[in-house]
Every structure is written in C-alpha cells, then in structure tokens.
C-alpha cells in the first residue's frame, strides 16, 4: 500500500481551495534501469475528488504527470467542516483514498 496523500483544504472567499500531494512514482515506461531494461510504466490513471461524498472533480492522467503528483482546485460553496475525499487508481489496479476536513 502506498503512502497517504497530503490534502490541505482551506476556505477562501466563497469556496475552498483544495491542494493534494499524492505519493506515487509515476513511471513513464520509457526509462531504463542500470541493466538497460525498460522500467514498466506505473502511473495513476484516474483521480476522483468528492465533497461530503458527492463527486465534484474527476481526472484522467497519463504518464506525463510529474512524480508525486500535485493538484490544486477550487470547490464552490464549500464550508469549514466539510469533508473532501480524494481517491486514485493506478494502472496496476492499486487504489488509495484519503480524506481531509476543510479548515
């Protein structure tokens, strides 16, 4: 199982700014190891963000998203105390979900 995500969600104006830092290698499948063998692609393919259990944002990612991906977005009308849940799935079928409370 992978390391937890770091999620920060703060009220700003009429919404909440959500910043997510995920822990993932995001291998492109193009690099070679010391022995000259190609390292297989290993990257997050789908991301879902939910506010109080309701999906607000989804994303599909290719190999060109940087290692340990960072994403920032703004949820309209979110209030302090609301729950933000972020979930991802990678191309190996691993998945992870983490939650944060909006401050």
């Amino acid at each position: 199982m992978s390391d937890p995500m770091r999620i920060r969600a703060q009220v700003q104006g009429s919404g909440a700014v959500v910043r997510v830092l995920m822990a993932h290698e995001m291998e492109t499948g193009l690099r070679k190891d010391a022995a000259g063998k190609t390292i297989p692609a290993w990257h997050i393919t789908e991301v879902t963000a939910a506010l109080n259990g309701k999906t607000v944002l989804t994303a599909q990612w290719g190999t060109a998203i940087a290692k340990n991906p960072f994403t920032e977005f703004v949820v309209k009308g979110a209030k302090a105390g609301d729950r933000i849940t972020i979930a991802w799935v990678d191309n190996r079928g691993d998945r992870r979900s983490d939650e944060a409370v909006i401050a």
Partner: protein
Amino acid sequence: MQNRREMMRRSAAVAALLAGAGVLPARAQSAYNRAAFEGKSVDEVIKGLGIAKPVESKDIAFTAPDIAENGAVVPIAASTTLPGVQRIAFLVEKNPTTLAGVFDFTDAVETSVKTRIKMGQTSNVLAVAITGDGKVFYAQKEVKVTLGGCGG
C-alpha cells in the same frame, strides 16, 4: 433429473444476469481513454478524445514557466471564464505521448486547476478547454526545458 436440469438452467440465467450487472459498472468505472493517452501528436490526441479542432481563445488563463530548469517537474495552471467548460486537457506537443492529463469539472468546482507535468524537451504546452456542447478552445505557451524529465 428434471429438478436438476431446471436448476442448471436457472443458475445459468442467474450467472448471465450477474455477469451483465458486473460488466456495466466495470465499464463505467474504467472511463480511462487509452487511445487519447497513447496519441503521439496533438492531432492524434484530438482524435482520441473525439473532439473538434480547437480554436485559440484569450479567455483561458494558462500559466506555465518560460523556462523549466527541471523538465521532471513543470508547474502549470489553467483556468477559464468561458461558459460551459466541463473539461480541461493538458497537451505537451513534443512529449513521447502528447496528452498529460484530462480534468473533468462538475458544477460544484471552478474551472480552474493546477498540477505539475513532465516534459522531455522544449515544447509548446497546450491547455484545451472543452464545453458541454462540444466547443473546443485552447491556449498555448512554449516552455523551454534545460533538463529533460522523460527517459534516461
């Protein structure tokens, strides 16, 4: 014997039902657009996404650095005031695979997103905004890369 045959028929029907039910959510879940992500040029990605040819728009605020010292981490951001935008895609013209990511917005979020991408070499980066009724706009910027982030 009759009973057994009847049972078999029923269980087959149940299995078919279950399989049908199982297939649907699986298909809905893996909305991952492999064709688009395997595209090796802007045209291939546009075809993969099944969208119209993008029109340049000044209403997409696209920020990317002029020079990226490290191509492995290039911060980019796009937001737009265009009405009805449901999707923003980031394309890097000269990466081995052009499409970096696609973000799908609901009405509950602002059409604004920041992320970090990898770039193999100096290239144009495009932010493509797609509206619910199929209009496609883009903004682009050239980012100079001094150290590549893809491959050895």
